[in-house]
């Protein structure tokens, strides 16, 4: 047997050594007094190798005792069963222990880990406590992890994702090259079945191992370490250098982010802490860039100089509906003399073709209109706002390109419904091509599976309301056809452009109008056909769209909680669907 070191460390007296037999008993003596001490054993592969033993697993020993009051010399007594104890004689103390020696004494580190846990991760105190822990070369059993990827946003933040397996509550964090600390607790976590399967012998293998962590600041080329404080010391579970730079447009960013796997039903939890912190500044900067682009305006003929209404229609992908709308517009005398028609090209790909078509349509039908080209895609809200910027009407009628009037008079009826000063928006009755209701009002429902509040169109597929039915108040109307007086539109500061690509802007604007003290109405006397299915043929795959909707629902909820909860708004009577089968 051999004593390597006697030292005082962290308020304890420590004796480290090895013995060629693991069954020896070791006591700590001061004179004839046996000090209360705890013996533990640890591996000493080096000893086993030198002595040509098969295993060194328990050859090392550690005796741990409180610091004795007496200054008398210390010695160890080693006893084998049925043998007279051997006494070492006075041992010389050394000053302090090496880090390697410290990692051999778990008890010694436990209090330090407790100290670390007592402080806020990343705080000065926490860092001081961390400094007292030795760096371990190897993680103890049960600690595993891997940094799978890092995305860095041009806006200066980023995300790290991967997985970490560790006992619940263990101090685990991410650390960048500037020593910024991100505790694993702020991450989005979810189960990883593959990890659980690979480490099934570990008690906590079923934990939510996957993590996605938002980095509020990040260099362009970060090094991220996944670290843990363990009873063996501080260990780096995984390290990754370099990151993938996210694109600069919201769609591109969303496509990258959404590809980090997360079940749809967990996506809502993630959106607030991961996706929005990345998306929001990207959307903001993109919007600022758009504001610097000077749109092109093409005028076809001369519309009324002071129109009662500006009809604003964004075009995205398909534009063959223009002619169908034009056929209806030009046979509506009220519209011809009281409205200006503004098309907004929201898709650079179709700009040339639309201008060509516009030329044909004007030659053929002679109805004056303007075509605004934003030169970049702005989404539903942005395109509508661009149209509004170029509108001279006392009212703004926002209309989807796939909404086709059925007969003249619809616009006049919508204006009648907004005559009352306390009405801030009017929607129309929209029908599917088969004649069933597509929209007469919008309300909201909580989807348990996704944990989001979603927009709902009650009455869908039912027979239409009679054209003679009076206008009625509703919680919200669709943006596919909505009339807003210009002053109200200016008061609520236009369509909100903070959503990702599109979704929820219509209920958002209705809530904003209601929050400003106005009512929202549906005018069933204005009945148009909505070829809704056609609108969305241009947007990416299903998974992308689902995640986008969840993200937007989360934002919508954060802003309009009070309108969504409680579900039934006492101010708005639940209008019965008065069916008119003769209609």
């Amino acid at each position, binding site marked *: 047997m051999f004593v390597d070191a006697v030292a005082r460390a962290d308020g304890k007296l420590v004796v480290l050594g090895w013995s060629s037999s693991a069954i020896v008993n070791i006591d700590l003596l001061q004179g004839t007094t046996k000090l209360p001490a705890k013996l533990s054993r640890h591996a000493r592969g080096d000893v086993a190798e030198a002595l040509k033993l098969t295993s060194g697993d328990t050859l090392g020993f550690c005796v741990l005792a409180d610091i004795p009051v007496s200054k008398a010399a210390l010695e160890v007594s080693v006893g084998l069963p049925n043998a007279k104890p051997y006494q070492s004689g006075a041992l010389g103390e050394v000053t302090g222990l090496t880090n390697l020696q410290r990692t051999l004494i778990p008890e010694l580190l436990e209090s330090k880990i407790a100290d670390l846990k007592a402080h806020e991760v990343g705080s000065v105190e926490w860092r001081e406590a961390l400094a007292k822990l030795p760096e371990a070369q190897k993680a103890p059993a049960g600690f595993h992890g891997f940094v799978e990827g890092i995305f860095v946003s041009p806006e200066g933040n980023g995300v790290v994702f991967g997985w970490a397996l560790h006992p619940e509550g263990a101090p685990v964090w991410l650390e960048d090259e500037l020593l910024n600390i991100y505790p694993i607790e702020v991450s989005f976590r979810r189960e990883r079945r593959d990890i659980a399967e690979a480490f099934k012998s570990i008690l906590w293998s079923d934990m939510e191992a996957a993590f996605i962590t938002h980095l509020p600041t990040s260099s362009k080329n970060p090094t991220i370490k996944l670290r843990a404080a363990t009873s063996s010391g501080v260990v780096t579970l995984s390290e990754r250098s370099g990151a993938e730079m996210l694109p600069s447009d919201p769609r591109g960013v969303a496509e990258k982010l959404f590809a980090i796997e997360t079940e749809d039903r967990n996506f809502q939890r993630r959106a607030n802490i991961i996706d929005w912190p990345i998306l929001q500044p990207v959307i903001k900067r993109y919007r600022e860039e758009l504001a610097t682009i000077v749109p092109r305006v093409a005028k076809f003929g001369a519309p009324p100089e002071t129109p009662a209404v500006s009809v604003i229609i964004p075009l995205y992908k398909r534009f*063959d*509906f223009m*002619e*169908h709308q034009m*056929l*209806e517009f030009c*046979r509506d005398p009220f519209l011809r003399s009281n409205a200006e028609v503004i098309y907004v090209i929201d898709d650079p790909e179709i700009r040339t073709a639309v201008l060509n078509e516009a030329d*044909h349509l004007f*030659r*053929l*039908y*002679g109805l004056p209109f303007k075509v605004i080209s934003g030169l970049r895609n702005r989404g539903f809200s942005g395109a509508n706002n661009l149209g509004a910027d170029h509108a001279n009407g006392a009212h703004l009628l926002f209309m989807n390109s*796939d909404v*086709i009037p059925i007969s003249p008079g619809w616009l006049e009826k919508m204006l009648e419904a907004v005559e009352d000063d306390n009405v801030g928006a009017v929607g129309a009755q929209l029908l599917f*091509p*088969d004649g069933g209701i597509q929209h007469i009002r919008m309300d909201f429902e909580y989807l348990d599976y996704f944990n989001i509040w979603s927009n709902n169109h009650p009455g869908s597929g039912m027979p239409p309301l009679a054209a003679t039915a009076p206008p009625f108040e509703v919680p919200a109307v669709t943006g596919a056809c909505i009339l807003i007086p210009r002053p109200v539109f200016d008061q609520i500061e236009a369509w909100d452009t903070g959503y990702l690509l599109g979704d929820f802007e219509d209920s958002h604007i209705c809530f904003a109008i209601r929050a400003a003290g106005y009512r929202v109405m549906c005018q069933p006397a204005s009945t148009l*056909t909505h*070829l809704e*299915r*056609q609108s969305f043929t241009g947007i990416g795959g299903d998974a992308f769209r689902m995640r986008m909707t969840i993200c937007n629902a989360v934002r919508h909820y954060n802003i309009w909680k009070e309108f969504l909860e409680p579900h039934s708004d006492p101010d708005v009577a639940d209008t019965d669907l008065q069916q008119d089968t003769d209609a």
Partner: protein
Amino acid sequence: MNSAKHRILVTSHGHPDFHLGGGELAAYNLFKAYADHPDVEETFFLARHDRGRGPTGNIFPRRKNEYMWEQGVSEWLRMKMATPIGTTRHFAELIRELRPTIVHVHHYVHMGLEYLHVIKQIDPSIKIIMTLHEYIAICFNQGQMVKRGTNRLCFRESPDDCSRCFPEHSIEDFWLRKHRYQSFFGLVDQFVTPSEFLRQRYIDWGIAPDQIVMIENGQASGEMLPPRPLAEGETRNRFAFFGQINPFKGVSLLLQGLASLKKSERRKIVLEIHGANLEHQTPDFRDMIMELRGPLEKEGCLQWIGPYEPFQMAGRMAAVDWVVIPSIWWENSPMVIQEAFTLGRPLVGSDIGGMAEKITDGVDGVHVPVGNAKAWGDTLLRLSSCTEDWDRLRAGITKPISYADCARAHLELV
């Protein structure tokens, strides 16, 4: 009656100089007949034409007051013009130049619906009369109102029904198609159909009943042909088919019907096919017809005579007793029915649509269950066995209206 005289432009999807279809002939004959009416100052004819160089949009003269228009259709589902300036410039110039008070539209196929709008844009007081020749506005299956592929009869359109025939087009596409047709048809002052059956189908589709009248196509004036002289012991056993040979016209039913009879029975019958355009049909259809035709021709009960010019019609009908019209689609008012009646030949026709309407079973002809080859065989056999039926049915024929009658009836509408 207006004191000012009418100036009438008749438009057609083809010129009979090049296309001898029923619609083209009806349009052209009416153009001629209008000119002879005392209330008419001048008449013009505009026919779509293809010079084989694509739809340039140009208009050029054919002869005095007759024009040809190199227009086309770029999208058949919605019947969109191929060359916008052909309509917004060249056609508009023609309207300004000719100053018609009436434009009688006999078709929009190959030209696009848009020219209707140009007429009203130039002068809203110009009256538009439109004659509907088949169910094209209602049915995308070549306006036949039979199901695509199976040729089953179709009774109604709806976006759902139609997109089952054409799954490559969505329900929304069919809604848009109908919407577009109805928008343009909204510019028409008066619709005319040559059959009550077709009129009713368009009323079901959405045209107001008081906006659409039935006026039969006019026919050349003239006397009935004498009965075909019979040799001793001969019967009224000569049948003739006149017209296009395509899957909707039912020629194969006649051939299958004959084939289903015994050889001894067939010997009593002679069927003549005066048919055109078989060469333009699909190879499958051509093969099917050729396979049926061969053995019957060899036996002698079938004579495959081929296409004819209008002037040959009387001569060819003189040599037969009956005219057959076995179509499996509804038809409208097939020209051959009026021609046969004009020339004094009873008809044997399918018992649906325009055929059932124009041929009165037991009065001026005989009905056969549509699509039933065996019934065609049996009916030809029955009718060929005697002469009395023929005499009675010939006596039952009412003389069709003349070109002048037809023009007069139209002018009473305006």
